[in-house]
């Protein structure tokens, strides 16, 4: 079954900047998709479309087989959870409880269900007991997990994360990757973190100049220096240090970590 299907999507910002041009993308249900590309390639713009926050000038987006229309926006937003890059944008309530309860409250879940949903979501990310904490007094790692909880409470089938590992210290990053690996949902990660993509993703797409330029297994795309160079990316140092003939084996060792 197909979770997300994007067909010929084009989008230009009001200032005329063509951010997306004829994008085609299909994501299978349960798949973990990495999305890499240089700054300004259109990754974030594409992600905003998948949740109905932007709607393209032309093209079609289907979520779980249904086109996004004005009528089903709230359904789309419940099914597609979008985690923003900066947790301070995602967590805006005085307490974490209210933040995690915000989504379910908007989707008109019965009031008596909500404390349970919040508790489950917080437990999933390992933040049980943080209900009454104010997000402004939490660490970046905690905030990131908390942001994840704010969409888990809506029980989404597709989870989209924009730069999930930015600003995280190595341990928080490792914890986050381990956490994401356990999720059964369809996941889309837009990131510059090749290490995470190699460890976590089944497939990777390379976005550049508003288009999907390449798609394939992470160990193939992310080790192909000519593709990376062409579209403004670089082979990461930790892969450069491994001889080309050993890279595949190296990556499978990395995955096992």
């Amino acid at each position: 079954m197909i979770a997300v299907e994007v067909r010929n999507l084009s989008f230009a910002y009001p200032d005329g900047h063509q951010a997306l041009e004829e994008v085609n993308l299909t994501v299978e249900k349960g798949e973990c998709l990495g999305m890499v590309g240089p700054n300004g390639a259109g990754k974030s713009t594409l992600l905003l479309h998948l949740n109905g926050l932007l709607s393209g000038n032309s093209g079609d987006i289907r979520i779980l087989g249904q086109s996004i229309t004005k009528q089903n926006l709230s359904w789309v937003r419940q099914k597609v959870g979008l985690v923003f890059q900066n947790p301070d944008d995602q967590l805006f309530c005085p307490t974490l409880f209210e933040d995690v309860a915000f989504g379910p409250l908007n989707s008109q879940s019965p009031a008596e269900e909500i404390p349970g949903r919040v508790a489950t979501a917080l437990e999933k990310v390992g933040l049980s007991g943080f209900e009454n904490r104010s997000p402004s007094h939490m660490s970046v790692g905690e905030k990131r997990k908390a942001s994840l909880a704010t969409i888990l409470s809506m029980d989404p089938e597709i989870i989209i994360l924009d730069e999930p590992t930015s600003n995280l210290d190595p341990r928080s990053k490792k914890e986050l990757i381990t956490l994401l690996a356990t999720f059964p949902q369809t996941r889309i990660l837009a990131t510059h973190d090749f290490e995470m993509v190699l460890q976590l993703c089944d497939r990777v797409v390379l976005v550049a100049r508003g288009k999907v330029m390449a798609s394939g297994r992470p160990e193939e795309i992310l080790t192909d220096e000519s593709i990376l160079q062409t579209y403004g990316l670089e082979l990461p140092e930790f892969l450069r240090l491994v001889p080309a003939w050993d890279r595949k084996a190296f990556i499978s060792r990395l995955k096992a970590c």
Partner: protein
Amino acid sequence: MEHSFLDRYSHLGSIIHNLDARTKVLAFLTLIVVTVLTPPQCWPIFLFHLALIGVTLMLSRIPVSYVLTRSLIILPFVLMVSLFLPFLPSNQPAGGYSLGLGSLTLGRSNLLVFWNVLIKGFIGVLAVILLSSTTPFPRLLEALKKFRVPSLLTLLLGFIYRYFFVLLDEILSVKRAVASRGYRGRWIWQVKILGRILGQLFLRTYERGERVYLGMVARGFQGLPRTLSPSQMRRMDYLFLLGFLSATAFSQLYFR
């Protein structure tokens, strides 16, 4: 992150802390209103009110020194008033109470005006400090919502509480970034930089507002916030309210 909490001590677990926020808002608001309406000559009432606050303070186990230090915040206002005192016509009724006698500069009525501002400001500020340090801000917002304060207003207050520290951190980091490049903000012509910093902060706040709004819409926000309110008025709340309000009423009847 070098800022203290706005509502420090509000997470202690005393009897007063465990009261419903509505109880405390109602009690302290009544106290403030009654204090303001009390004529300044009725000093026993003020003493009684201070004692009432004192008892509540003891019950709440908040350090007295903390409350007193914070209450210094009224000083600028009192000083402001005292600056104008010598210019008040001393033989005329001031502030609605008629007083016969008066001398040249600091007459009796002027002193009374001063006393009026001082004691009422002091009691009011003590009540507010007591309220804010026994009630976490989110609970306070909840109480306001229950009192039918428009949800747009409480949402706005919530944002202020949430982003106050974020903005403070941003100001701090900009200040450091500027200082690390040798800016000392000493001369008047350097004020231009200050303007740019303020502009920059405004833009950042504005853009953050947009992103936060996107974050809300992404989770299905449609214009009006729905909230849960788990808090409940219990027997202790009614007892406290009854005691507090009847004590206030008693002081009015007995000392006036």
